[in-house]
């Protein structure tokens, strides 16, 4: 079974984003960029499936600028086999990404597509579900456990009240939550090896997908700032504050 893993290059999760003065977006110049953390978990899960003998080949794909090559090389260094960059400098919305991925899936015929549940830049949480819809296949979102057995996959999902388990017929789409696994670091020899793994570069037009945005961003602004508060000296003062707030009798 082939596994397809889409990955996105995003602002590093340790960096505090700054809104541009002109209100057009977030300033990404000279900002550290990394693989979206949920996508790293997706890559790791695919590699573990391969190590268990459930997956035969792992193809990673990214939609983004030329520099997304670095993100793909990271995935290759972790242990995936082959990469595809669908290169564009435009902002590509989840719906268009899902359409591109559907076209890639039609060529690659994966048994499983594993995606991060959301990207930490636009926080949309849409692409996996949209891909499942477009492919007409079942989805297991927010996965904390994935078990492939025969022609089905059993997915334990993190839901509002706790955990839910669903069994999906393959091919299926899975999106990862935080506790699915802890991604490995690529070793130096593997980073060197990854440089010679195949990386194909395509354009959105190669797949016949219109990536024109449907949403118009009118402005991007800073959230309302909280006023700096006060420090209390001891528990008695805190008790008095809680009483004043009406939460303690």
């Amino acid at each position, binding site marked *: 079974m082939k596994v397809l893993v889409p990955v996105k290059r995003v602002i590093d999760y340790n960096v505090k984003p700054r809104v541009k003065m002109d209100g057009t977006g977030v300033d990404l110049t000279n900002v550290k960029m990394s693989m979206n953390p949920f996508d790293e978990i997706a890559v790791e899960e695919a590699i573990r499936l391969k190590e268990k003998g459930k997956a035969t080949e792992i193809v990673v794909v990214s939609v983004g600028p030329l520099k997304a090559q670095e993100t793909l090389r990271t995935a290759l260094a972790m242990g995936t086999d082959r990469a595809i960059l669908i290169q564009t400098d435009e902002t590509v919305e989840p*719906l268009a990404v899902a359409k591109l991925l559907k076209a890639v899936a039609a060529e690659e015929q994966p048994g499983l597509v594993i995606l991060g549940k959301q990207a930490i830049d636009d926080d*949309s*949480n849409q692409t996996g579900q949209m891909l499942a819809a477009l492919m007409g296949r079942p989805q297991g979102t927010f996965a904390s456990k994935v078990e492939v057995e025969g022609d089905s996959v059993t997915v334990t999902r993190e839901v509002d*009240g706790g955990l839910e388990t669903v069994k999906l017929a393959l091919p299926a789409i899975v999106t990862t939550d935080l506790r699915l696994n802890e991604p490995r670091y690529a070793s130096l020899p593997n980073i060197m090896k990854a440089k010679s793994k195949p990386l194909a570069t395509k354009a959105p037009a190669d797949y016949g997908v219109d990536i024109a945005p449907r949403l118009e961003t009118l402005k991007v602004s800073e959230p309302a700032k909280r006023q700096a508060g006060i420090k*209390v000296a001891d528990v008695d003062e805190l008790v008095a504050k809680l009483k004043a707030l009406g939460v303690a009798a």
Partner: protein
Amino acid sequence: MKTLVWVEHEGGALKDATLSTVTAAAKIGEVHLLVAGEGVGAVAEAAAKIAGVAKVHVADSAAYAHALPEAVAPLVVELMAGHDAFVAPATSHGKNIAPRVAALLDVMQVSDILSVEGDKTFTRPIYAGNAIATVKSNDAKLVVTVRTTGFEKAAAEGGSAAVEAVLASSMGEGSAFVGQEISKSERPELTSAKVIVSGGRALASAENFHSVIEPLADKLGAAVGASRAAVDAGYVPNDYQVGQTGKIVAPEVYMAIGISGAIQHLAGMKDSKTIIAINKDEDAPIFQVADIGLVGDLFQIVPELTGKL
């Protein structure tokens, strides 16, 4: 404009998320509801009483029992022939179903709206809430998920909407419900609690979490939350997590105990009315958003506080 609102319910009762979502939908257009599930007659009756609701569609079938998106999305898509906007709360059901509906309608969804700014225009948080985007949809139909803390709850009484049974012609397949482990608690639910007591990594063990955080929460009648670090370390289950990718909360009072305040955690609680932080590190980022801070050892402070309340 006619909206179709996904009704969140559990155990035969409406959930608060539904009421906030109705308020958001009312700002977009006429409010119609969709109640999907098995044996949901009572839910539909309760839904019809929500103030401002014009119509309730009820899809009562075993196929919808667990709100599997493969079954529910085709139903919503059929109903969307007569509606202009699908509006769902950003709950795990809403986040699971809405994008599937959007893709089938060839619509780009607007996730997690904080406000309705006008004709097809909304604000939504991006970058873990470090920026707020104002976006306008240019699609013919709208698919929107709602950050429920951004909207007041609609009145649960006062309406008398007509109830109409519906059933989709196509069901979808390929997915089967196997089981669930739902956390049972006597405490209030995290997303609708007035007071939340949250613990972080500094609790250092599940035992400490239970013996330090929970007695304080019980004294205050509060819900219990946790940072990602505490959940990852196994102190508490996943559904306690507050943050960018966990639950988004905005209670009257949020107490962060032994939580340093990573931006991912702040994203989930910084709209709380009053934030109280207890941390031994006076430079912890949590103090930058806290209204009231107390620097010190939580293992001394919290039991003392619980005792004095």
